[in-house]
């Protein structure tokens, strides 16, 4: 039986706004992510995809329902450092070099210096930033900064990776390059991934399954299996099957007329 990385059942999340009103960010979410599986969460603004990711990361707590990560509670998983995380903004520490930033989590968790250095070197090679190891973030482009953030997310060899629109702020060309890179790294490390995105082609390109969500309240509308054989390469983007899958996701998103899918890219 395959190990379950993330198990979500009947999860609700309600936010209280200043004036005593409530917002149903998530309602009745059921989802399972198997170990090594790449799952994307896609949907219009307000569908709760980022919220769901934050619940998995224990950056927030569900109002109802159960949520486990590798069979443990989310707080336990966080304290055990079972996952790595990347945000839309790279959130690098400006006073540390590339190497310093990648070493950050290892340093905080008491890894010995020699081990840290070796692992950091490995990761720098992995993301292709060998010549920039001693630069500071303000000397790097947006794409490079995100690569550092991704390297950092992989630092402690997590079995689960949580990513919240990490390529959202990048231009289209850099974005596609980064997607190919990420697909390669994930295949190499075998980590499970929960990936939040606005972009349909991105979701289709990277994922084993795409979770389509709808807003008000945040619900899972449909889960589509991508079933795209072979390696994630540039050629895949031109493939028939790829376009078919993109259309399928688009249809699932635009689904019922009342939903009104705003804020989703159709490029």
């Amino acid at each position: 039986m395959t190990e379950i990385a993330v198990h979500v059942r009947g999860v609700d999340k309600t936010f209280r706004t200043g004036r005593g009103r409530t917002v149903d960010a998530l309602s009745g979410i059921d989802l399972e992510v198997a170990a090594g599986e790449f799952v994307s969460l896609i949907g219009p603004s307000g569908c709760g995809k980022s919220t769901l990711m934050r619940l998995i990361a224990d950056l927030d707590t569900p109002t109802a329902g159960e949520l486990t990560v590798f069979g443990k509670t989310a707080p336990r998983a966080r304290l055990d450092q079972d996952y790595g995380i990347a945000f839309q903004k790279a959130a690098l520490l400006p006073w540390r070099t590339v190497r310093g930033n990648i070493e950050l989590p290892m340093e905080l968790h008491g890894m010995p210096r020699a081990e840290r250095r070796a692992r950091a070197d490995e990761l720098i090679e992995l993301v292709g930033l060998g010549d920039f190891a001693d630069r500071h973030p303000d000397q790097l482009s947006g794409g490079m900064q995100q690569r550092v953030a991704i390297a950092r997310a992989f630092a402690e060899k997590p079995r689960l990776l949580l990513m919240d629109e990490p390529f959202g702020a990048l231009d289209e060309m850099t974005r596609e390059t980064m997607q190919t890179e990420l697909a390669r790294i994930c295949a190499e490390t075998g980590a499970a991934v929960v990936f939040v995105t606005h972009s349909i082609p991105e979701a289709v390109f990277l994922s084993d399954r795409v979770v389509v969500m709808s807003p008000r309240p945040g619900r899972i509308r449909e889960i589509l299996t991508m079933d795209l054989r072979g390696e994630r390469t540039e050629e895949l983007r031109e493939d028939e099957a790829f376009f078919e899958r993109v259309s399928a996701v688009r249809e699932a998103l635009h689904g019922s007329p009342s939903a009104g899918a705003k804020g989703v890219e159709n490029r």
Partner: protein
Amino acid sequence: MMRRLRPILLGIAGVVLVGVAWEVYKALAPDTGVVIAGITVLPRASDLAMPHLGAMLDRALSPVTRAAGSPALWLATLQAASFSFGIAVVGWLVGVVVGIAIAIVMQRFRTAQSALLPWVVLSQTVPLIALAPLVRRIGTQLSTGGFEWQDWMSVALIASYLAFFPVSIGALRGFGSPTAEHLDLMRAYGVGWWRTFLAVRVPASIPFLLPALRLAAVNAVVGTIVAEVSIGLRGGIGRAIVEFAASGSADPAKQWSPIFGAVLMGLAAAGLVALLSLALRRYRRNEVSA
């Protein structure tokens, strides 16, 4: 090469221009100054009110008093300035430490921040330096047992009082500057408040802290001088300024030496903080959003 020298050359040019303006004004303006409706709008240009720059220099090189063995004025001034500067440094250090400590408390406890911050901000806008004459009395009255409250301590206390406020506010702003992503990241790493503080908040606060430290240094110098005047501290530059000014009608150029001494103190204070800035430049790289 020229680019590096340019600000320095311009600085010197600026100061020289001020000196030139001084002499030009002296040459052109009447001895009684420009008086409009009984109010002296432009200063008196007499040798008594505005000595020649040359006269100031001459006087600085001469002995302080006519008494035998009296040191040169510039030397005595330098000694007084150093003495006062030392007190200002002590005041600055105390103010910085207390200011940062309070900022840490305010950062850690929201309630403390709500309770204290308005008072800290308020105290920057009101002339607490008006307390100067009182502080010494309180100090001497508090002397207990073997501990004797020295006059210089009152001066240092006032200096630290003036230094602490900008540091507190600057430090708090700096501690609160890390973005939500940075804090989420630390939480995702399972790192507690104190370690997050040391690893992220402290380095992030440097760009906010440095201008505050500079302001605090300037305030400490001003506070020292003013306190010395109120208290009449022996050996201090403040006392020298007032003392020499009292004999200003007989010896007009004498009072300018301690004034230049005070100016030097201010420049030295700013200069030291600038050195600190230089040492900490690694932490001043601005955040570039991805």
